[in-house]
């Protein structure tokens, strides 16, 4: 389903993809941090040490096996019981570094949040944080939205993660459930071009209104100019030789 045939359910004009939402910025630059490929950040020739050709194995983040430990099992069981579409909505459950992450199908995110907030056994009353992450080159659906929910009653935290693609960066807004997500979703839109359908006023918040592109995408360059210092030319940070 694309943006065009999605019902307009919150009074937000959807049909036109915002400028820059799909194109981002000029992609002349290599991805900001291609960790795992080479060591010194330079592509092509120039590195004669041979270390530039090293390829490190990355551990893929794997689905956790039951029991997760701590309160994580209780949270999962409670959600499974309260939310009949659990199997369809939850793509993956990850437990890493003592934190529980539920990977949610983007179109289900608002429903899941509703249950997380209202079910008596879950009671995640506070949406602490909404942020975006751009996994360029690592994930087909590279734009991830990360919600951090806090249960003040049970003193628990859970992370929800939903991934969308740059071609169709749409997912439902959770502002109706957590009004605090309002500005945070606007920031994620501003910085990553993620479009939250049903948001009452999805405009840029930190960048100027007429800004083009979404600055925190990985294919958006940092920018900067070279500076002369004691006769030497110091390139801007993103053009300096660096370790990866």
């Amino acid at each position, binding site marked *: 389903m694309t943006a065009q045939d999605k019902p307009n359910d919150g009074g937000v004009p959807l049909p036109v993809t915002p400028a820059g939402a799909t194109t981002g910025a000029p992609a002349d630059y290599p991805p900001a*941090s291609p960790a795992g490929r080479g060591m010194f950040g330079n592509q092509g020739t120039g590195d004669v040490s041979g270390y530039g050709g090293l390829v490190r194995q990355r551990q893929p983040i794997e689905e956790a096996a039951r029991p997760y430990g701590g309160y994580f099992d209780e949270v999962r069981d409670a959600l499974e019981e309260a939310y009949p579409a659990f199997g369809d909505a939850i793509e993956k459950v990850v437990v890493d570094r003592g934190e529980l992450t539920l990977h949610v199908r983007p179109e289900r995110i608002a429903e899941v949040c509703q249950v997380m907030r209202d079910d008596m056994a879950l009671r995640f009353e506070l949406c602490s944080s909404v942020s975006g*992450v751009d996994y360029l080159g690592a994930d087909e659906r590279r734009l991830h939205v990360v919600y951090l929910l806090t249960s*003040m009653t049970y003193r628990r935290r859970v992370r929800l993660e939903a991934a969308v693609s740059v071609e169709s960066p749409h997912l439902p807004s959770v502002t109706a459930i957590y009004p*605090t997500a309002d500005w*945070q979703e606007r920031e994620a839109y501003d910085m990553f071009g993620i479009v939250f359908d049903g948001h009452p006023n999805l405009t840029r918040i930190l*960048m100027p209104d007429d800004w083009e592109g979404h600055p925190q995408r990985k294919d958006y360059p*940092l920018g900067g100019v070279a500076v002369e210092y004691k006769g030497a030319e110091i390139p801007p940070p993103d053009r300096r030789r660096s370790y990866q």
Partner: protein
Amino acid sequence: MTTSNYATERETTEGRVFTVTGGDWDTVVSSTDPINDERIVVNMGPQHPSTHGVLRLILELEGETVREARSVVGYLHTGIEKNLEYRNWVQGSTFVTRMDYLAPIFNETAYALAVEKLLGITDDITERATTIRVLMMELNRISSHLVWLATTGMELGAISIMLYGFREREYILDIFETITGLRMNHAYVRPGGVAQDVPDEAIVKIREFLKMMPQKLKEYEDLLSGQPIWTERTKNVAVLDVTGCVALGITGPVLRSAGLAWDLRKTMPYCGYETYEFDVPTHPDGDVWGRYLVRLAEIRESMKLVEQALDRLRPGPVMVADRKIAWPAQLAIGVDGMGNSLEHVAKIMGQSMESLIHHFKLVTEGFRVPPGQVYVGIESPRGELGVHAVSDGGTRPYRVHYREPSFVNLQALPAMAEGGLIADVIAGGASLDPVMGGCDR
């Protein structure tokens, strides 16, 4: 009708717009239509002495009553989160300290805790380093609350309290300067510990401060608490109850002033806060007055914590033992400012080639952080300061997001201001204690 050089008007689709830059007020007033122009839109800021920073408020007024309020932020956006992705993990602390400039130690500590959690070395942080962090954070909380008291006093017309608040805050900044070398933007709390040990003279200064402060706090209360103007301007003003706070994500003193004792130091402890004795002050009313009382009480609680932290300081290392993470040199003050200690420079330049290689690798390349993501939330003076840090396994942060309490809390301004008087917008906005450097990052 004669054209005025000062007051001009033009028709727009939104109605008639007046540009008032001086001249005769009667001329301006007489050209409005009292029946159709009951509502006026006032643009307040971004450069306004009472908006607590470069914050712009667009207010729709009917007489003196605010009908709609919208805040516009972003004027201090400096792209810190993006910049972090182009520096190594340790360099990140010099960036994050510049976000919320009134609470730099909190920014650094939250960042350091997040990186340590990613590295899996949370339990390896030395006792002394953790105690120093608590000590510094609580001193910082006092200085931040003092600036709140000072600026809010000024915005509500109490100039003396402004001078007093900044005077005592300067004392804390002196202590910070003795310990870190800088009054602000310290980059003192680093992943793995703190940059250098606390000198003895700083301990003396902190003890002096603890002795002096109760008297000063009493002075503030004598000045403000019984004063009719202060109570009139704060009691029952900008009320927000617990439901409103939680829905809007408001944490910190504003939430506690509404009656909910939610303090991450108690409810989700970090840095060993569960082992300290302190109370969480609350107030039932949820108004500006309550926020004032809660913040004053928090200064007293922080002083208790500083005292306990001082008593706990035992000699020991202030950095993790892991040589692959710990900064190789102790810092020292030289004739040209602060830098690596002379003994260390002598060692790497004259005695040990391996030490030089080690220093070079760790300083230029930095350490690698295993891939994954973490979230760490700490209780800053303004509420929950959260760090969402993502690593891809490299030597640089892949993504660091700050859940800034100033940013989130500012969303409450329309809820507090609409329906009230325009003068109360100032009181309500100030009571949220937004710091725009943190809000816009």
